[in-house]
């Protein structure tokens, strides 16, 4: 197992190192990074396979790294999106928009970013996970202003300040949890491991654990983009370069939710799920509401996608608060969203390259200018609003069913209403983009065709997951839900 872990975590580090050593920047470093990302993905799939076979791979002194079903699920998602970014990002030799210095910076920090996310989901130790998540803020903040402009600098400042504050609050929650643990069990090396916390959970003091969870939820919720701490998200995701936006929207939000899920399991074992569920429902609904309403009248397509991310995170949060059925729905949604949103952001990068404007009003006639891109963009948008045959339809359906099953009919009615608003807003905007006259100066034709292959693969995955999914995925999700519900 050691080699697998090494492949998983070491590949991105090595990729970053290679990019750092290549002075001046050369395309081989990017190519090597792309290969290494595939290695990382393979390692993640292998770990998932081991988990499905019943094992729980661990590694490191004091079992510092531990992969159970939830970790494996997220590791696969993270490495998949990281691989997409490595293959489609700047620095592979064909970029007209980024200079070699920028490409190099992107390669170094996006690889480190991937590493920190993978470390966060495979860590057994709560504090190591925290350190890794804080490191994700740092590594990603450095490449948001890849092209320095007033808007991107403003976005990166908001991002780093708000997320660092949020993560500091999450640390307060971590300290409180640790405090409770060592009052029960005394100090020990493994005091901060998930396994120890779960074992000691039933004996913990209810008030302290609840207080800790509030801090954790607010802290990691800031990183996940839950309202009302979401103000950094539209700016950061819109101003960042497309591959970075894809990673941030697709999987970073998921990693933050992962942290919340882990702590929820501990709190659930300690005091039962009433308070955590209620808080999650409130925050989820608030995020969904704010996002859906902000989608109406949105003028920039990348911000549109960013608000859509908030909407989906809100849905996932709602699902987590609705019991095991809801948790299943939330995790299925997580996987689908990772694939769909990344694909959409990469496509938006292509659109930006061609149309040279971020405004929705400036983009029209997409289907004529770039037929395949436009088609994939439309498909992705249909997926995001939850239409069949895409996977999100299944997950949204499961979510609503879970809501009715746990006795929240009015809540589900509100959710459906908000989803309808988002549906209308998104589709009308996309419609305007796809059809209409071509603006001046926009060339017709796809340009870089090879870049479309991975994105087409994403679309295929979305449809496959929607048509009844992989049996393996189902099994993995089931096991992951077991982890959360315990």
């Amino acid at each position, binding site marked *: 197992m050691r080699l697998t872990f090494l492949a998983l975590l070491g590949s991105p580090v090595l990729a970053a190192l290679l990019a750092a050593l290549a002075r001046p920047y050369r395309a081989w470093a990017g190519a090597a990074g792309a290969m290494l990302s595939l290695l990382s993905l393979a390692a993640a799939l292998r770990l998932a396979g081991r988990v499905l076979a019943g094992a729980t791979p661990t590694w490191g002194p004091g079992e510092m790294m531990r992969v159970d079903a939830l970790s494996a699920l997220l590791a696969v998602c993270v490495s998949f999106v990281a691989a997409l970014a490595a293959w489609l990002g700047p620095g592979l030799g064909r970029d007209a928009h980024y200079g070699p210095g920028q490409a190099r910076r992107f390669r170094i920090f996006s690889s480190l970013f991937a590493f920190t996310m993978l470390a966060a989901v495979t860590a057994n130790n709560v*504090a190591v996970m925290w*350190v890794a998540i804080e490191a994700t803020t740092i590594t990603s903040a450095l490449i948001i202003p890849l092209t320095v402009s007033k808007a991107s*600098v403003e976005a990166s400042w908001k991002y780093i300040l708000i997320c660092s*504050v949020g993560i*500091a609050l999450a640390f307060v929650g971590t*300290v409180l949890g*640790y405090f409770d643990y*060592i009052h029960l069990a005394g100090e020990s*090396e493994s005091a901060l491991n998930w396994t120890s916390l779960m074992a000691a959970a039933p004996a913990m003091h209810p008030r302290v654990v609840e*207080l800790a969870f509030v801090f954790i939820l607010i802290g990691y919720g800031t990183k996940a983009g839950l309202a009302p701490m979401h103000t950094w998200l539209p700016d950061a995701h819109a101003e960042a370069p497309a591959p970075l936006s894809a990673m941030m929207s697709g999987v970073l939000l998921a990693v933050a939710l992962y942290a919340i899920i882990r702590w929820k399991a501990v709190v659930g074992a300690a005091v039962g799920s009433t308070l955590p569920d209620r808080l999650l429902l409130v925050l989820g609904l608030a995020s969904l509401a704010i996002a859906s309403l902000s989608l109406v009248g949105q003028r920039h397509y990348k911000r549109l996608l960013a608000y859509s991310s908030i909407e989906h995170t809100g849905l996932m949060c709602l699902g987590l608060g609705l019991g095991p059925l809801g948790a299943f729905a939330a995790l299925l949604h997580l996987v689908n969203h990772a694939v769909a949103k990344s694909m959409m952001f990469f496509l938006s990068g292509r659109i930006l390259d061609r149309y040279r404007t971020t405004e929705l009003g400036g983009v029209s006639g997409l289907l004529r200018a770039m037929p395949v891109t436009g088609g994939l963009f439309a498909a992705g948008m249909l997926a995001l609003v939850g239409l069949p045959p895409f996977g999100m339809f299944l997950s949204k359906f499961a979510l609503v069913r879970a809501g009715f099953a746990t006795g929240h009919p009015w809540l589900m009615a509100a959710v459906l209403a908000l989803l309808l608003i988002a549906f209308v807003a998104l589709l009308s905007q996309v419609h305007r983009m796809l059809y209409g006259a071509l603006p001046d100066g926009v060339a017709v034709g796809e340009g870089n065709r090879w870049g479309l292959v991975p994105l087409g693969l994403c679309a295929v995955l979305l449809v496959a997951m929607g048509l009844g999914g992989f049996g393996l995925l189902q099994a993995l999700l089931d096991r992951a839900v077991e982890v959360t519900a315990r």
Partner: protein
Amino acid sequence: MGSLFAQLAVMGSSLVLIFGLLLLWRRGSAAHIAAFTAQSVALAATVAVIARFTGSAELWVVAAMFLAVKGVVMPLLLKRMERRFGESRELDPYVNTATSLVIGGLLVLFAYIVTRPVVEVSQLPTRAGMPLAMGLIFVSLLVIISRKKALTQVIGFLMLENGIALLAALGTYGIPLIVEVGVFLDALMGFLVMQIVVYRIQQTFESLDIEQLNRLSQ
């Protein structure tokens, strides 16, 4: 009031909190940096007191780290930042000083209420200082929200971290050393990245007034 240990711990925590409140009162970056430096020294002293009374070698190392990095290195970097891109003019905060101070006092009261369960559970003699650490956390949040200058927001964030470190030291006699080091390096990296971003802000906006950062508003 309890033993000498408890009294010293609470006195140290009060000093840490008072230096935090100073950030609400004084204007001008020089005063803010001085307040942060004094606060870090008080924090290191409190951790050293805990180390002395619990006989933990790890905590001595932690106290030395705090003193070296937060008491010396960070203030130097902050002063350099101030010199390079300081404003000559003071910026009024969003909330005026007297109101901020009163809100700060109320936040400390709120912190007492919030940490009630924690203090009741704890058996340690240092538990009396935990509400003060939590109060510092809330006051730092107030500073970050209500100040207009990017540098002041950074100092507010550093004080937030001081508050969390104090909470950990008082509540659990510190977290395991390896974790402490990790957290510390993270914080340092975060600070350095903030420095870089502030530099970029200065470059593109030619001021550190965050009111200028309003282009992305929808």
